[in-house]
């Protein structure tokens, strides 16, 4: 399936239409990631919801929802008439948000493990193996 990219100086968003995750979540997740890993810095201007929608070929309501979630979670703030900016993040909140991003995926893995009768110890052992293998292969694929 095709995907679209927006590169507004700093922001990078890749949408996948074959991904089961709703498009608004893909957008908010990727912006969160870039804020947490420091690619987007506090005070940086983000594209408007309307420009983002046009560039990504998605509906305005989709980008609006993505920004609403980011604003609710304290990642961005909107100044009426000026635009939307990356909100300042404390180190502590960045640490907490890192784990928040991970927890959803972990929960899926844990639930699946339970269905497959894989014990907690077995799961942790598995993570250790794949973590090392991934490093060795230079594997940087992202599986969402």
């Amino acid at each position, binding site marked *: 399936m095709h995907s679209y990219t927006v590169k507004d100086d700093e922001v990078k968003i890749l949408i996948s239409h074959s991904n089961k995750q709703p498009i608004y979540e893909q957008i908010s997740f990727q912006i969160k990631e870039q804020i947490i890993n420091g690619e987007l810095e506090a005070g940086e201007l983000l594209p408007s919801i*309307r420009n983002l929608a046009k560039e990504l070929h998605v509906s305005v309501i*989709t980008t609006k929802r993505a920004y609403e979630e980011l604003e609710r979670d304290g990642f961005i703030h909107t100044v009426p008439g000026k635009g939307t900016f990356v909100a300042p993040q404390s180190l502590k909140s960045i640490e907490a948000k890192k784990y928040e991003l991970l927890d959803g995926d972990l929960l899926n893995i844990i639930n699946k493990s339970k269905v497959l009768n894989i014990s907690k110890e077995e799961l942790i052992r598995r993570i250790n193996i794949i973590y090392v293998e991934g490093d060795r292969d230079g594997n940087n694929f992202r599986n969402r």
Partner: protein
Amino acid sequence: METILEIDNLSKEYADFKLDNVSFNLKRGYIMGIIGPNGAGKTTTIKLIMNLIKRSSGEIKVFGLDNLKKEKEIKNRIGFVYSDINFYENFSVNNNAKIIANFYDNWNWEIFYAYLERFKINKNQIFKDLSKGMKVKFAISLALSHDAELLIMDEPTSGLDPIFRHEVINILQEYIEDGNRSIVFSTHIISDIEKMADYITFINKGKIVFSEDKIKLLDTYRIVKGGLDILDDTLENVFINITKNKYGFSGLTTNYSKLYEKYGSSLVIDKPNIEEIMIYMAGGNI
């Protein structure tokens, strides 16, 4: 935010069909797709907005103005694309445009010629020699060239190839980027709705089934599947519509979290797409 289109309890009675108490609104800056089976009332609704046919009852406001009392002013600010395109067959593109241009205060030739260029239409070509796709492109160019605040399009992309549909969608998304303009279009091509509509109005048998924010719609419903062994009347009542086969049932519901609590992983809970929501809501079998 300002409401650009308000339709209130609109009805139109024909001998064999009734558009029945239709109500919905659209805000400025957004795109609404009207979907529904053939003969559901999409075109009737659009024709009533444009006052091309006489309504039986109800009220329509465009830009906050009554569509009957202020018809002329409203139409000046609307760009319209009909599904059956009617122009002078033996006139050139340019001469057809001249006739249309006369109706609009804000007609802008520069914008019109820019669209022709973008669509690769020769302004001297005779209308009847244009391909079907070109005729639609011409009609869209006309609709976009007088600074209309509201575009109303009756199946603008039907019968067109995917590449052209994509091009149209891009242009329409550009058109509303400033946040001041809105688009209402009818279609039965679900992928067009999925790509560009902010709001979806589903009409079936002359009635509104839903008129809703697309994201909310996709978030609200789930398709729940399970074995026939757990299916009793109480469970069946949770579903808006349910279909059964030899191996299990499958139903559309908003109450999926309760079901998950009770039945857990013995159920499959899926997010439906717009098409699936439509089919279940229309009472069809999947």
